[in-house]
């Protein structure tokens, strides 16, 4: 099976499993992003048809929510908290360090496809500021050195 048809199958499976829930669109979008890492633009008409919505409505929902993305993410997605508590503990410096270290800005992916960088407005880890999230893992009281260690660990792990 080609990659495109696998993707189409995945999208269809998610839609079939969830389309009868009340307010099914967000659960479907989550299902697709969980499976593929993003919501491919060619899945929009398929979702729209299944839910009897216009493509514009589906696109509008995808673009409204910061979490949903329509491009593939890097191997690891790094979320850096920009909110007040983290700022009070030096996250602005950490932010600069992270961007310099990776050589990218927010909403970008490194050229080797290893890391995507996103801002986040609170991880609820405010008692351990500054906080970041990498994939599903949370890190608290993150210093520049500590960030570098995490990154080199991820780079060396297969």
């Amino acid at each position: 099976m080609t990659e495109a048809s696998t993707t189409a199958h995945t999208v269809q499976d998610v839609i079939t499993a969830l389309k009868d829930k009340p307010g099914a669109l967000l659960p479907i979008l989550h299902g697709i992003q969980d499976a593929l890492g993003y919501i491919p633009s060619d899945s929009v008409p398929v979702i729209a048809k299944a839910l009897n919505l216009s493509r514009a409505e589906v696109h509008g929902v995808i673009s409204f929510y910061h979490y949903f993305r329509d491009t593939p993410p890097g191997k690891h997605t790094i979320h850096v908290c920009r909110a007040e508590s983290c700022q009070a503990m030096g996250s602005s410096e950490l932010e600069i360090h992270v961007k310099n270290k990776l050589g990218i800005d927010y909403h970008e992916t490194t050229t080797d496809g290893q890391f995507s960088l996103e801002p986040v407005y609170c991880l609820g880890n405010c008692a351990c500021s500054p906080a970041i999230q990498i994939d599903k893992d949370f890190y608290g009281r993150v210093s520049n050195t500590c960030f570098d260690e995490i990154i080199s660990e991820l780079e060396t792990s297969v």
Partner: protein
Amino acid sequence: MSITIYVPCDSSAVSLGADRVAKAIAQQAEQRGLAINLVRNGSRGMYWLETMVEVATDAGRIAYGPVQTSDVGSLFDADFINGGNHPLALGLTEELPYLKKQQRLTFARVGITNPICLDDYLAHDGYRGLTNALNMSQADIVKAVTDSGLRGRGGAAFPTGIKWNTVMNTHSEQKYIVCNADEGDSGTFSDRMVMESDPFVLIEGMTIAGIAVGATQGYIYLRVEYPHAHKALNAAIEKVNAAGYLGDNIQGSGKAFHLEVRLGAGAYVCGEETSLMESLEGKRGLVRFKPPLPAIKGLFGQPTVVNNVISLASVPIILDKGGDFYRDFGMGRSRGTLPLQLAGNLKHTGLVELAFGLTLRELLYDFGGGSATGKPIKAVQVGGPLGAYLPESQFDTPLDYEAFAAIWAVLGHGGVVAFDETVDMAVMAKYSMEFCAIESCGKCTPCRIGSTRGYELMDDIMQGRELDKNIPLLRSLCDTLLNGSLCALGGMTPYPVLSALNHFPEDFGIGQTNSTETNAA
């Protein structure tokens, strides 16, 4: 007899290495041939001590912390499993002053039990509230909640009993209970702690709400940034479904209540109740006009109770011990307890549940221990990103909804973020405008456009451009946002901006302003 050791599974503890500590303890125990029962409890909420490991002894649980993986070997050498002495030993957990001085009602079990063990929940007074509720009339349940004086803990402080009463008296085939678990306010994490550390109490509270108002379906709208809470809630729901505490016939009462967790997708505005319901319906999270009130026409057009996690999690103890018991805590019209969250630049960050009435200063210094950096605390933002910044001169304000309103501040969801003297308040004011611009749903003009104009204006002000013109313009813009926005996002962004300007004018490049005159924008 095997020894019970507790290592928290709370996501903040995990962010400091709790999983690695738990693994190291299990390995060491195995190597030394010791039989231990390793329990992953919730966090006690003393985050400067995390990872805090506890050991059950005859005298009570003894704490050690903060434990790193490198400490584990020496802990075993010191016979910590029998309460042995060690440099990290903290003594009996319950005797730690930070914990002992608290009044934990909503958080009674948090950090004590295994979050997803139903037997543990039942052994610690769980489901006593529901058992009582099942033997009461709907009106009596609502009355108990009204009598307790409980007000919405999400931040708006609307009396919970009045909301329930409206939904109870609105006739409909289908009604809903929606839990607002979109805890987007920076500096707050009490919802997260309840959901990760005691998910059953939220489920019980929602079930009681459903029975009280005649709703058979509940949704927990959870922010996607809380994957640990998602896992814990789903695991807990599965357990209570199997045990008959949810479903079509709750404990043989013939009453039905079903519960599902739905994930948000990173939009702060979805913490606003009408935007949240739009999102649950699968739409963009645009704020709705009110009226109609959600209690009359809410989710899918049906009568809906929308309550915050802490409000709903406070219901079981009210139904267990009575409205009067809860009401006896607190001051003035702020009854019961508020779980406060100490965050930012404080030595002892964490969760402090107390009756209303303590002063902010006592909270910051007696509990928080002053700033983490050791420098003087310059400003404190209370109540999330839309809350006012308080200067030192206001630290003696009691923690009470009305006392905060009187100084043009909000208690909100109980988040307290401290900043030391290095903070530039103009930067914080600019950030507030930026945040509003990023998170605005775009429905109303003051918020959609005003936030961007405000961000640009702050840029000019910080460059020192035409201050005599731009400062009044900023005030005028804030006045428009304050009075012309559809919801609290645009309507309250002026709180942090103007409080920063009024209390710290020097950071904006101007002299003292008369803050009493300018408070009202």
